[in-house]
């Protein structure tokens, strides 16, 4: 390989199998035959299914372990506190489905009457079962989740994603293309090792024309429960999310500090908001959730929101 690798054009692109970056790809012949060129009928089917879903939000990162699933779960809990709001949480992390554990579910799909969850985790019979699937099979599962699950009337469909910028991310954006996604919430931690992956994710969003609702900086400082002094366990050596958001001109939705109760709550499958209602982390989450709601259902023109 002498050239810098370029993006795969996509199996359904006119360049499929023919582009310079297709050389050497094991799927080249299949793509060049035009097999992938016809639009997938599932896209229209999913558009129909999504007519009863008012708002769709993707939770992305690029970096693993920054708290996407934790955030998705608590965004779901927060939105569902209003019993008139129907919330659905879809976990498309096929290899590492964390949502069932964090939501305290062992197979039931409803946490509350107005909060439903779908995850490949429910389809596994044992906690040791590994989902060792290649891309195309993962994409098929995501298609099934979107097309074949009876979502019903939903105010918010939240989609928790795995780390990276790969099959799952491309697929969910492609399958929901006709159904309009409100936007993406991007989760990071303060250090450069995370930010360097998150910048890629923001670039991915721009590339696929996915609006960025904003960035959440998680694990942002730790206050010692004994002496109450703050430490930066993951130091923001290059300006943290704040610096990155200024550079890339995306909103910073908020910063959530480290709180040992969060990890404990997730392990027990309980809402952290119930376990520690007055924690600075809970307050940070609530403020972020409110901003997301305002983005999705603005009471005033969006331009005013951006400048406030």
């Amino acid at each position, binding site marked *: 390989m002498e050239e810098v690798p370029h993006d795969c054009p996509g199996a359904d692109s006119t360049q499929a199998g023919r582009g310079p970056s297709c050389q050497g790809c094991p799927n080249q012949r299949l793509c060049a035959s035009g097999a992938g060129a016809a639009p997938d009928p599932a896209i229209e089917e999913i558009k129909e299914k999504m007519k009863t879903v008012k708002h769709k939000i993707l939770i992305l990162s690029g970096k*693993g*372990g920054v708290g996407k699933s934790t955030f998705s779960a608590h965004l779901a809990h927060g939105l569902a506190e209003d019993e008139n709001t129907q919330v659905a949480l879809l976990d498309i992390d096929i290899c590492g489905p964390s949502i069932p554990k964090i939501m305290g579910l062992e197979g039931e799909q409803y946490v509350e009457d107005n909060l439903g969850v779908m995850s490949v985790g429910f389809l596994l019979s044992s906690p040791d079962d590994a989902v*060792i699937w*290649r891309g195309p099979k993962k994409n098929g599962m995501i298609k099934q989740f979107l097309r074949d699950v009876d979502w019903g009337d939903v105010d918010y469909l939240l989609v928790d994603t795995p780390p990276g910028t790969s099959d799952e991310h491309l697929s969910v954006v492609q399958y929901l293309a006709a159904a309009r996604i409100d936007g993406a919430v991007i989760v990071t931690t303060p250090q450069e090792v995370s930010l360097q992956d998150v910048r890629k994710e923001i670039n991915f969003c721009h590339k696929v024309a996915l609006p960025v609702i904003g960035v959440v900086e998680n694990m942002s400082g730790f206050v010692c429960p004994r*002496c109450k002094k703050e430490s930066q366990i993951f130091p923001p050596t290059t300006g943290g999310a704040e610096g990155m958001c200024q550079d890339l001109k995306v909103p910073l939705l908020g910063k959530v500090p480290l709180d040992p109760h969060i990890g404990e709550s997730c392990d027990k499958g309980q809402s952290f908001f119930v376990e520690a209602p007055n924690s600075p982390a809970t307050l940070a989450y609530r403020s972020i959730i409110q901003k997301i709601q305002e983005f999705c259902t603005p009471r005033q023109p969006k331009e005013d929101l951006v400048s406030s």
Partner: protein
Amino acid sequence: MAGAGELAGAEPGNLSGVRHIILVLSGKGGVGKSTISTELALALRHEGKKVGILDVDLCGPSIPRMLRAQGKAVHQCDSGWVPVFVDQEQSISLMSVGFLLENPDEAVVWRGPKKSALIKQFVSDVAWGELDYLVVDTPPGTSDEHMATVEALRPYRPLGALMVTTPQAVSVGDVRRELTFCRKTGLQVMGVVENMSGFACPHCAACTNIFSRGGGEELARRAGVPFLGSVPLDPELSRSLEEGRDFIQEFPKSPAFSALTSIAREILNATPALLS
């Protein structure tokens, strides 16, 4: 495996000079695979070993920055890519897709087949030369990259897999699946490392279990694999990785130092037994 030799008219395999291959796996993202890979390489180097690191996390290649090698150019020789040396003494070499990207903010948005194809090339076309240990850092999951890596490395009989977890159940849950992956693909598990294992407040020394406790040791016990050690949270470690510094050299008094050097020594001690 060591010194596989040259067949007449054929290229000697680029891994033929590599004595031991270790895969660092997790299943769970963000537990510290790249951190442990980097620190393990530095610790093995301090024990006098020649080490290579192969970073097959195509979407999130973290290792170049951790060794202050970001932005370095890669060259080709007759045998393939020349890995980047991260130090003057040329005792640590590194190959990562990070070196092939013109713009570090550009996302590598590839589907599975293309990722698998690149990983096969990385495994066979990097001219490592003579190495005591090759540490292979992987992305989270049990998918294309992992299958491609294990298949490509299989002829070279890796020493085994090092599993990294954090203490909490959400991490352990994914690592259990990764252990199944190892069993199904015939990859020996060298042991479990529990990272982010508690935080000692630098102001008052009180220890807080920020990410729960006990999960790693329990996981190792249930899976019947060695527990290699717990690495505590240490802002100096995070900072060293951010700045591409040699934590093992610069912070011998840090609480994470003794854990990391002990893990490296365990691996060195266990190597002969794992070979048989």
